[in-house]
């Protein structure tokens, strides 16, 4: 199987890897780079546990080949906290009990970040639509919506 040398900027740092053509981005992150915060929950691009930002856009990293990330920027949950300070979305999830088992949480956080990057004051419906590609089995979404609203308010204060 052919391999390719790629360079991906992950959470601000350039990283190189030799990858097989078929390697999925999620496996590059989890197994080659040992960033295990990004999770895998299905095989059909439905659950969103593997959501990361690719050049700022949320993508399901189980449906992106590692080679497609060559020369691009990837943001994962591990990059959210800056200088020991939680991102407002992380704060919101903790404050509003927006997680239970924690498995869908990294994907939800990344989707929430992407939403708030494009909308300062999302309505409940905007939030529900934004996270509709991220499945959560524990929370019933009520507190996830509130967590993102909390983060939106925090970001507006800045």
């Amino acid at each position: 199987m052919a391999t390719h040398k790629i360079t991906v900027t992950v959470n601000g740092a350039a990283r190189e890897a030799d990858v097989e053509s078929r390697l999925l981005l999620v496996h590059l992150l989890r197994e080659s780079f040992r960033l295990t915060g990004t999770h895998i929950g299905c095989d059909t691009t439905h659950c969103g546990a593997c959501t990361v930002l690719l050049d700022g856009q949320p993508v399901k990293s189980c449906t992106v080949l590692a080679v497609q990330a060559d020369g691009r920027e990837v943001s994962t949950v591990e990059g959210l906290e800056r200088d020991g300070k939680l991102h407002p979305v992380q704060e919101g999830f903790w404050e509003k009990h927006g997680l239970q088992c924690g498995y869908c949480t990294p994907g939800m956080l990344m989707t929430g970040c992407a939403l708030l990057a494009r909308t300062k004051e999302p309505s409940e419906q905007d939030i529900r639509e934004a996270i509709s590609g991220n499945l959560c089995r524990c929370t019933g979404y009520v507190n996830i919506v509130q967590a993102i609203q909390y983060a939106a308010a925090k970001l507006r204060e800045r």
Partner: protein
Amino acid sequence: MEPKTSAQVCGMGHSMKRKEDPRFIRGRGNYVDDIQLPGMLHMDIVRSPFAHAKIKSINTDKAMKVPGVLAVITGETLAKYNLHWMPTLMSDTQMVLPTEKVMYQAQEVAAVIATDRYIAADGVEAVEVDYDPLPVVVDPFQALLPGAPVLRTDKKDKKDNRIFHWEAGDRAATDQAFAQADVVVKQDMYIPRIHVASIETCGCVADFDRVTGKLTVYMTTQAPHAIRTVFALVAGHVGLSEEKIRIVSPDIGGGFGGKVPVYPGYVIAVAASVVIGKPVKWVEDRMENLQADSFARDYHIHAELAAKKDGTMTALKIKTVADHGYTDAAANPSKFPAGLFSICTGSYDLKRAFAEVDGVYTNKPPGGIAYRCSFRVTEAAHCIERITDVLAQELKMDPAELRMKNFIPKEKFPYKSALGWEYDSGDYPAALQKAMDKIGYAELRKEQAEKRARGELMGIGISSFTEIVGAGPSKQFDILGIKMFDSAEIRVHPTGKVIARFGTKSQGQGHETTYAQIVAEELGIPAAHVQVEEGDTDTAPYGLGTYASRSTPTAGAAGAMAARKIRDKAKKIAAHLLECAEDDLVWETGKFSVKGSPQRSKTIQDIALAAYTNHPQGMEAGLEAVSYYDPPNLTFPFGSYICVVDIDRGTGMVKIRRFVAVDDCGNIINPMIVDGQVHGGLTMGMAPALLEEISYDEDGNIQGGSFMDYLVPTAMETPAWELDKTVTPSPHHPLGAKGVGESATVGAPPAIVNAVVDALAHLGVRHVDIPITPEKVWKILKEKGAAE
């Protein structure tokens, strides 16, 4: 209820932010698939495309030639060690890998061990299996007919497909009550096969050390201690001994009952690690998870309810056929083949009842696990809440009025049910009244009448359920003979900080927080200073695990009891320090003081230090205690839910406009966590009511075997739940708590179905089976001439 402790101590009643969250919101959880050990190999599984077939041959030559493939394990490999079959929790037998035939589609046929997961998948593609298809039995009713192919040909004396016949209650007395009834209603209802679909699938890393002989298995299990014992019993003959087995259940990405069973994949990974001498990781994908792991429900119920003209219910009769798949691998307590289905008399003062269940083999995957409920309690609640509405419709009575008339009165608790349970406490009318007030029941009925006159379809549905959780008293409850107690071990360090270990295992329920709050409540040590650990069998005390809402009723109670033992010892130390008699001491949160002179006191922290530095002569040093708590009874959480739906006559789409849930789980430890549990439970109640089902075609091909067509609710379908509560403490639990994780999953489905049927009742509709899909509703509307 006002908390007794300060916000700093954070005992019961405080909405403490969760102690486990800082790692999860940073992506620093540690789930099974995150574990990577040096030299670790990967396993992938070859699965059967047929639901019933003889295996003519398995050719592994091509697979073994794939670079990086190290081994292919088949039933023949395991048979050499007599590990190709294993016992189930219900004392049936289950194949680990087949040697003769496969019994369901997606059954494990062989396993490939390779250096990485991609190569393992290549190896799976290269294994050649030659099958000879056999007649498939999909329908459990046909499976019971004389002449049906007998599926379990491995069992010498088995001549049919019946697994068990179970019954409860007095059949003759019930029949007599039916004969005397003014009104009898009858209803068939099917509670379809569904799947818990926790977002993390199942898997393990098995690590056998050839030098020490120690086997460590990191696995997605809700019951690590029981699993250790099962492994020792199943593999004792090949040299695995219980002291050399360590099960670690790390962070678990949702369980809901699906991570109770021992799946073949775990056992094969262990066998592979033992044979190869390297760690082996197996993590199933979503399709394997949905297609092969344990299912829930699959109950075909026939219910009959007898009543007087005035609506007084007099007797209940239920006959059920339970499709168990090819083996009885249900996760019930051993003496309860139909779980706690005998809670089917629900919240009503029914004098007579009789229930029977026949378990049946079919060519489907095994299971019969819970899907976020205590054993078969959702099936029972669905049945009684549905048939109650059928009776209301027959009598032309308001369903709320009918319920109020038949509730077990508050003063009758503890209440002995017709099927033998002693309900601990309840106030059912209060919960229903609160729900009716909150949603504005009378106004909604008016609105419905107006809408109906205009041809619009709106329905209001009630469910007033009673659960039975917290198994359980050891006199009745065991799993493979192991009594269903649970445990806590608390150590107070010299500086007054605590480590507390429990026999349960959180899968998202927040035990690290709630257990810490229980210790804080009992000892006055801040919950922030209490480190909770679970899931490692080398360190935690033995317990039966977390499922069936048993953690707070059993291990939570053990935590309180262990803390009280510590307090007893602390009192002795305090008397020594204060030079007074023990009887002269009074306890208030966090300290002992001398009666009448409150300035003479010692805090629990002072006492902890003294326990290691200045303990009384003749007393053992240290401050720790263990409790194995055997509850005197189960607990009976309850609630009343009201759902309002609007139905689109053009599409058949059901929209939940409002849903009010009034829950009563006794005393509450962390209100925020309780609300979160109810939100999640409601959503997992809505899921099978409107969306989820796993069905099979006549050849046994699974329908709904991936998230393409197994429809887990998204944020779009899920309404904004409205919660409220009443508090009726359990009289026998040391904290008055009852457990809450599953109430809403039990209570929600009938509220939704009753609302849909209520919306269609004037068209002559009396029942709709779940899931209530738009297609199903549209067909009904079309048939009744009401489709747009």
